[in-house]
């Protein structure tokens, strides 16, 4: 992948990031995120526990897909440039799901600090339903 953008003149309102598809999401991906984040709710990795709670199988941790969408955003606009990331949880993600992230620039404001870039981000399942949606702000150099 190309390096993240760093200067605000490289983008304009309406620009879209190249979509990226993650997955199929495996149980290993979920467990790896559980370890990285410290969230060991058994409903996300213990098949028997998930079934006894009434679910057909384990399902992903919401913060995993929130994190995938955040990675997509920082790969695009730079890890150090992020100033705000707000994510809403809309639909569960299941093992074998393929998640496609997309994003577009909704506004750019300039001041002495640089260019404040607002983006809308979406992470959709293979069904087309959005699993998590986010908005984010980045500060890029002028």
């Amino acid at each position, binding site marked *: 992948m190309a390096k993240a953008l760093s200067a605000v003149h490289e983008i304009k309102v309406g620009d879209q990031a190249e979509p990226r598809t993650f997955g199929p999401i495996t149980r290993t991906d979920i467990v790896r995120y559980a370890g990285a984040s410290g969230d060991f709710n058994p409903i996300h990795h213990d098949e028997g526990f998930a079934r006894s709670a009434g679910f057909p199988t384990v399902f992903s941790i919401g913060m995993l897909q929130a994190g995938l969408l955040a990675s997509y955003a920082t790969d695009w606009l730079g*890890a150090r440039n992020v100033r705000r*990331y707000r994510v809403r949880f809309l639909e569960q993600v299941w093992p074998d799901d393929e998640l496609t992230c997309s994003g577009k620039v909704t506004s750019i404001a300039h001041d002495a600090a640089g260019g404040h870039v607002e983006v809308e981000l979406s992470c959709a399942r293979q069904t087309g339903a959005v699993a998590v949606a986010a908005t984010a702000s980045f500060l890029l150099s002028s």
Partner: protein
Amino acid sequence: MYEVPLERGKIREFARATMARDETYDARDAAVPPTFLTTAMNLWEPQGELDYGSFTLDLARVLHGEEEFVFPDGPPTAGQDLTVTARLGDVYEKPGRRGGTLTFVKLIHEFRDPEGRTVAEQRTTLIQTSQPPEGS
């Protein structure tokens, strides 16, 4: 109040788990990924740290609604030690679309550097339903 060290190896592990490609996450002074500070709550927060006051959280009826992370001067970086204060924010009710009442609960985690400056804030929205949620 509790301390959270921002560790380089933990940042790398988190960036890998969230499949980030930005190589600066491997740097000695890596910025934390946007959602990384959720690890503070999971790994460092003492039991009972957050005072829910008169509100009773029933985990069997709670959905994760939203998370917001704000970094006024950019994300903090590996090697920093931050101090966290956790508090209950607004609690309010709305009628649910399928009947019943939804209770929205905001949790605020404020992260300060050793000089006392706020470097990050995490705002969590939990939604407590009248009945336990059903699958999907």
